[in-house]
């Protein structure tokens, strides 16, 4: 990519910008931060000489790992100053309003989690990464991911119950892949 293969870079960008933008948005609640992080991930790819090594894990882990580090740095620096984002919604304003009211509470609860729990909840439950992929992105053991996810979800449940009754549970197949 450092050779300037624009077509390859564009293909890579278009395949991954969405997931990486959504990761940063979900973990920070800030569209501005998500935009910056997405851009910086690919700038980092342009700067790096070693590039991606498939022996070290899936490309999703590699890119999420870069996004995670950049987002973490920004979140810690701008702690307390990140408003909940206003991302683009569908065309139906009323349905959108109801959905936003419900999910705002969930998002605020997610954003209220300690960052090391929040990252794993977002990676596994919102980004759809496997435990192994999340472990590679975060740079920890699979057992640590499982533990953080367990505790993060436990705290999330407590926070949601303290705000209002949670939505009726439904059969929950694995989230987005």
């Amino acid at each position, binding site marked *: *990519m*450092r050779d*300037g293969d*624009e077509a390859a*870079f*564009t293909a890579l*960008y*278009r395949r991954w*910008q*969405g997931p*990486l*933008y*959504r990761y940063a*948005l*979900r973990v920070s609640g800030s*569209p*501005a931060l*998500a*935009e*910056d992080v*997405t*851009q910086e991930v*690919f*700038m980092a790819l*342009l*700067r790096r000489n070693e590039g991606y090594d498939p022996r070290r894990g899936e490309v999703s882990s590699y890119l999420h790992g870069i996004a995670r580090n950049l987002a973490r740095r920004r979140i810690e620096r*701008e702690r307390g100053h990140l408003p909940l984002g206003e*991302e*683009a*919604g569908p065309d139906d304003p009323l349905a959108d309003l109801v*959905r*936003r009211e*419900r*999910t705002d509470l*969930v*998002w605020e*609860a*997610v954003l209220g989690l300690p960052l090391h729990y929040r990252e794993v*909840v977002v990676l*596994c*439950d*919102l980004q759809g990464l496997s*435990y192994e992929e999340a472990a590679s992105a975060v740079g920890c053991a699979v057992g640590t991911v*499982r533990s953080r996810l367990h505790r993060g*979800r436990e705290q*999330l*449940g407590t926070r*949601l*119950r303290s705000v209002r009754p*949670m*939505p*009726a*549970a*439904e*059969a*929950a*197949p*694995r*989230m*987005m892949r």
Partner: protein
Amino acid sequence: MSCEDFEDDVVDLARGGELGEAGRAEALAHAEACLRCAARLEDERAVTSALRALGARTAGAEAPARVEAALLRALRDPGPIDAGGVVTARPSRAIELLLLAAAAAILAAIVVVPPRADRLRDTLPPALPAGSPATPVVAEEAAGENAEFVALSYGEDLRELDSLQVVSVELPRTALAALGWPAVESAQTGSVTAEVIVGHDGVARAIRFVD
């Protein structure tokens, strides 16, 4: 299966993944026989449901087109990358917020110069097309009384604005460096003086460093 074993599996059970068929059947059988674990499973399923709703809300979110445009510009002109510098296709939005906050905090330093507005228009950058980044800035180009203003907004011709104000602000160099502004080296200390062009709505439109 014990309640302790169930607790180990309940998250996987509620998420619907990572647990084999046999393990899933065993855990569900335990939940049917244990009220406490059944309630625990319902709680975890509710968390899963809430997260799915959040995931659906943000499922279509993508980076704006200007990010791709900025990256392609950087790809086509990789010089500063090879030099080890930071190529910033556009200043972070945090910079804009910082500048506004600094301007408010140091009102005493504000110099409003309405009569200069017409003259200023001659020095303003042209409109940036929507989706394109601000011009990358290097230290030599960014500083000095003859430095040109660098646009902070997109798709807006600054020369057509009815009302312009020039706000002089002083900012610590370290704060700018920490926010990734490429004109300021992190090793430098002290403050930097900048002029910010603010529209009638109070939004910063352009900046230049005069120190």
